[in-house]
């Protein structure tokens, strides 16, 4: 401790407030090199033979990148080829300040042992700390600090006898910095220069980001866009009200149109419509921008035109023609929306984008356009020498910048994911595009797993209820390896029934705040794709230690009720426990046991008791107005070897499904009550708001077309009228109605009880609800477990758990992750449906009209649970005469046939692969026959050929 006395002390001052901080300089910071004999570093990071073949530096060397090189060329630094890099503290701090994502990536690189990246704490080193001089800007000072450190390294390494030829190389793209470095005897190169000098690694050059100097060279000198105002002017403008700040959302269908959402006070948001490239002014989807509103005379209605940016050349031409199409005369003035233009970018939200390369038509060209999979992202110009090998591949590209004289943003190639249409590749793409974290768990995360072999200890038994003797069993879908719930039911001596729901005790293994916890919190949920599962927690927990498999001892969190035979709860008890499940059953197996009167073992008796109670509970819930809605869910039968879908099947529900569900609901409700009672400010709950009445319009109209009435004034009324709405000889009608009703609903969300007053769960007709029963696959449940554990004094609390703002932020992330997981799931189903139809060729199927649109009908094929659109308009030929009546809604085609909702039709289904990046299921009408509109039964071959030509 007395060591601190030997430190030299300096102070530094801030700007407005005079902040004085101590700054200790040390003499025990090592250089981190293996060759060094002076430093007493026990495990040096930088290798003795730092060899990488380079024309410029034929000697072994360490690299020192400056801040801008790290910020812009992180893709290069991450390459496995680049090793032995010294990251200065000055650089790291600047990066941290300027870009959180890059900071995380460079930190990951530093932690990677293979990379041999060393952080040199130069700001606290006695010889490398410098003070800011008078009239020196902070940037200049930092540049100087980097040079001083580089010089120190140069001299320090040359002093050690064994490595006389080992040098350091400073990478900087700043010319004056480089000159000054050379003056003091430091070897310095521009990043491009250095990377290009590497022998035998041409592909690395592609990953170079373009710096602003290069960008000017590429595009013409003509300025295409208005300039962006500097941040200071933007802020002044926002303050004075001349500019508005909002998030930029590009349109999916029209590359010349975008909306800026401006958050006003409270929940109010204003939308500003932007039209035309000049007004969009280089903003990219999800950027935070400043906009200036146009006067009212220039307000317009959004154009309903579909425009795709499909020019083949990358000329920087102006698209006057396309923009003309946007202008359509508007008669209805209520449709007018405020319009404006982007004056500046407040924050770019660029991420690496998945997509495909359009090879330039000029054979030798190294510049190519890249089309992102997300239609809202503009095409990106990249430079690559391996274009021919990248064609047909899904690749990732990052944007480097968008200069004023360039029609497209400039970017660079990051990574090749694999061939388009390939199952692995497409899965990777949909995970990336839906922001699903799916990298393998890092070593740090894994280090917090329990050591194997693991078993229940005496300690555990001391603090837990020993329920190993109970006849507990689990019921799940077939093939389930992450079993997070198990049940039991037995008769008590007083004639009542004891029912227990036992949930995997994940919070026992995942302690608050450690890396494992943070990773799980960030992932938020396990994502189930067709034939693939992206776990929220490492497999050791999800499929082993936390999975309540049969005949092993497992830790559980139990919710135990005493009930009478009318399923009325007499008392509720929560306890941490140890259980030993007697059987892991599938729904079908459980159903079989219940039905088979010859079976009378404990498990079966337990199941019968549960089933009996569940039926009463369900009836009571429905009585209260809980909704049973329907959505066509499909499941694929996968080929066990190729993992190709071989058959589609809609989900089938058995009694046992709803049996398990019923008790999970009950447990969730009981727990919700308990944690809210205990922590009224910071209970994590789940609510499902009632939809606004207008949401039901479509459902009411649809029912009316069949002379039925759907009442929507309450959930109960809705549930009842849905039950009554049946048609004779149209069995599927009720299901269709329920599918429609599902579409009217709001999204259920997590929230923190201290931040909201409306807790109602509309769909379940429960005044309070939460998620407790799936902690292996939902992070919300882990938090709920922790709250409940504190409530029953089984565990201790920690600050973040009791902080309603932090918990609210967590809820936002969980809601986001759940939404994205759902989208990813749907995208995965869609992709597998495509694979399925690809193998099936063309099919003819019966379906029902689900929606009627102005120019199309949307059809549901019950057999596949598949939804598709039959368009009556065609790009190439004049469409048929259509008249749409929004009252019905009905659509009359060629004055011959009128389509109503719920009509039965016959369609052909095929895979439209004309756009390889956006393959889709194509439906065409077979019956009713409308000449010129419907297709004929023998499949029209020519059409398919024509599409190929179109490509």
């Amino acid at each position, binding site marked *: 401790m007395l060591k601190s006395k030997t430190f030299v002390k300096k102070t530094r001052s801030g700007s407005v407030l005079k902040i004085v901080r101590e700054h200790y300089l040390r003499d025990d910071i090592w250089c981190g090199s293996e060759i060094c004999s002076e430093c007493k570093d026990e495990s040096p990071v930088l290798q003795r033979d730092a060899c990488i073949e380079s024309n410029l530096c034929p000697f072994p060397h360490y690299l020192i990148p400056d801040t801008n090189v790290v910020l812009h060329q992180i893709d290069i630094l991450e390459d496995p080829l680049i090793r032995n890099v010294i990251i200065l503290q000055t650089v790291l701090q600047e990066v941290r300040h300027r870009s959180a994502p890059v900071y995380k990536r460079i930190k990951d690189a530093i932690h990677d042992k293979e990379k041999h990246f060393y952080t040199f*704490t130069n700001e606290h080193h006695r010889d490398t700390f410098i003070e800011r001089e008078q009239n020196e800007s902070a940037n200049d000072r930092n540049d100087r600090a980097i040079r001083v450190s580089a010089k120190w390294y140069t001299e320090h390494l040359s002093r050690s006898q064994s490595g006389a030829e080992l040098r350091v190389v400073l990478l900087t793209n700043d010319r004056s910095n480089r000159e000054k470095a050379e003056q003091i005897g430091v070897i310095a190169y521009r990043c491009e220069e250095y990377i290009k000098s590497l022998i035998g690694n041409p592909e690395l050059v592609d990953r170079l980001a373009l710096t602003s100097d290069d960008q000017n060279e590429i595009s013409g000198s003509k300025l295409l866009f208005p300039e962006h105002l500097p941040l200071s002017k933007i802020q002044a403008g926002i303050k004075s009200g001349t500019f508005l700040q909002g998030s930029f959302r590009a349109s999916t269908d029209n590359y010349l149109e975008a909306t800026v959402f401006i958050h006003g006070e409270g929940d109010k948001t204003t939308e500003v419509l932007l039209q035309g490239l000049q007004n969009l002014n280089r903003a990219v989807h999800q950027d935070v921008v400043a906009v200036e509103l146009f006067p009212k005379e220039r307000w317009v209605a959004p154009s309903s035109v579909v425009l795709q940016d499909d020019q083949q050349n990358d000329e920087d031409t102006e698209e006057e023609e396309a923009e003309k199409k946007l202008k359509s005369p508007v008669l209805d003035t209520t449709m007018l929306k405020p319009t404006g233009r982007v004056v500046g970018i407040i924050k770019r939200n660029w991420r690496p984008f998945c997509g495909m390369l359009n090879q330039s038509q000029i054979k030798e060209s190294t510049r190519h356009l890249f089309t992102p999979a997300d239609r809202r992202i503009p095409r990106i110009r990249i430079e690559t020498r391996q274009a021919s090998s990248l064609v047909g591949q899904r690749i990732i590209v990052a944007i480097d910048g968008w200069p004023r004289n360039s029609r497209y943003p400039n970017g660079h190639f990051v990574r090749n994911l694999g061939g388009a249409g390939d199952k692995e590749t497409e899965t990777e793409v949909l995970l990336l595009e839906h922001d699903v974290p799916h990298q393998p768990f890092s070593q740090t995360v894994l280090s917090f797993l329990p050591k194997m072999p693991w078993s229940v200890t005496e300690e555990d038994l001391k603090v837990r209820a020993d329920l190993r003797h109970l006849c507990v069993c689990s019921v799940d879908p077939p093939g389930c390896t992450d079993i997070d719930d198990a049940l039991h039911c037995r008769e008590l001596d007083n004639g009542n029934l004891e029912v227990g729901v036992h949930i995997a005790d994940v919070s026992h293994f995942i302690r608050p705040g450690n890396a494992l916890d943070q990773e799980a919190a960030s992932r938020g949920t396990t994502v189930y794709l067709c034939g693939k599962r992206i776990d929220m927690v490492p497999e050791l927990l999800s499929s082993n230690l936390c999975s309540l498999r049969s005949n092993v001892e497992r830790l559980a969190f139990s919710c135990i009720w005493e009930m009478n035979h009318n399923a009325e709860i007499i008392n509720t008890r929560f306890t941490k426990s140890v259980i030993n499940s007697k059987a892991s059953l599938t729904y079908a197996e459980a159903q079989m046991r219940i039905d088979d009167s010859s079976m009378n073992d404990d498990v079966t008796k337990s199941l019968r008791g549960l089933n009996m109670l569940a039926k009463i509970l369900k009836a009571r819930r429905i009585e209260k107005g809980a909704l049973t809605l329907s959505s066509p869910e499909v499941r694929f039968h996968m080929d066990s070897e190729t993992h190709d879908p071989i058959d589609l099947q809609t989900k089938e529900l058995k009694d046992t499904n709803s049996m398990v569900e019923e008790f999970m609901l009950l447990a969730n409700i009981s727990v919700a009550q308990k944690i809210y009672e205990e922590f009224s400010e910071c209970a994590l709950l789940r609510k499902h708001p009632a939809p606004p009445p207008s949401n039901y319009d479509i459902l009411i109209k649809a029912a009316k077309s069949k002379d039925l009435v759907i009442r929507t004034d309450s959930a109960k009324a809705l549930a009842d009228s849905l039950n009554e709405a049946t048609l004779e000889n149209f069995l599927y009608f009720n299901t269709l109605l329920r599918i429609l009703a599902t579409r009217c609903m709001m999204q259920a969300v997590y929230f923190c009880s201290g931040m909201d007053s409306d807790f109602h769960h509309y769909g379940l007709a429960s005044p309070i609800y939460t998620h407790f029963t799936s902690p292996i696959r939902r992070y919300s449940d882990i938090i709920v477990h922790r709250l409940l554990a504190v409530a029953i004094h089984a565990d201790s609390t920690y600050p973040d758990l009791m902080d309603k703002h932090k918990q609210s932020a967590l809820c936002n992330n969980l809601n986001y992750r759940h939404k994205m997981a759902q989208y990813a799931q749907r995208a995965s189903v869609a992709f597998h449906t495509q694979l399925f139809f690809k193998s099936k060729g063309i099919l003819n199927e019966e379906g029902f009209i689900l929606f009627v649109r102005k120019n199309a009908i949307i059809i549901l094929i019950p057999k596949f649970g598949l939804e598709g659109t039959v368009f009556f308009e065609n790009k190439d030929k004049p469409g048929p005469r259509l008249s749409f009546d929004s009252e019905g809604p009905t659509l009359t085609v060629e004055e011959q046939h009128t389509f109503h909702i719920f009509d039965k039709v016959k369609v052909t289904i095929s895979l439209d692969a004309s756009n390889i990046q956006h393959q889709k299921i194509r439906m065409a009408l077979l019956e009713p026959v409308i000449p010129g509109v419907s297709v004929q039964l023998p499949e029209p071959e020519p059409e398919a050929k024509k599409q190929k030509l179109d490509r």
Partner: protein
Amino acid sequence: MAGLELLSDQGYRLDGRKATELRKVQARMGVFAQADGSAYMEQGNTKALAVVYGPHEVRGSRSKSLHDRAVINCQYSMATFSTAERKRRPHGDRKSSEMSLHLKQTFEAAVLTQLYPRSQIDIYVKILQSDGGNYSACVNAATLALVDAGIPMRDYVCACTAGFVEDTPLADLCHAEESGGGTTLSLALLPRSENIALVQMDARLHQDHLPALMEAAMEACKGLSKVLDSVVRQHLQEVSVQTRE
């Protein structure tokens, strides 16, 4: 990515210290001639002045006096210029009264008050500059002042703070670290017996972490006690040299 990185991956804190290292300590005893005892203490940029009067007869109402021991009266204040933001600090605001009370409790535990029944010992401390650990600087300064005044104590009372960042306990927090959002634990220790005179924590902390945090604070206090001890010895040497002359 708001906020400061309190502990870098290399194990350095904002000001370049490692997790267990204390700030630079400087102290002087006997800074005022009029008082019975006085001391000036610097822990990094936190600077405190302590003055001790007594033991003397109980002033004011006699009812306050205790028949079996001395009354300890503490007053804590902060100089207007002590923080980056200058503001008037009236005497007796809630924070100062609380701090005064804490100091009183601390020294009641350390001073052998039973030696002076029916009398009073006044301890006045003022923070001249504040950069985290105000309480500990006050305690340490007051200890030195009590020693200077020749008032018998069980042991030095050494105080230090400790905080928690990413599973690592940090000793002797500076202001930036205190306001970094974590938990701060203030500990006043009688180092030789390892008796705790006062421990205070102002935010929640997971129970699992408490032993490690206490351990860090104890170590820091012991480190400080060595410094205080050397200050006292040096002072004595100086004084004895002076008196001999």
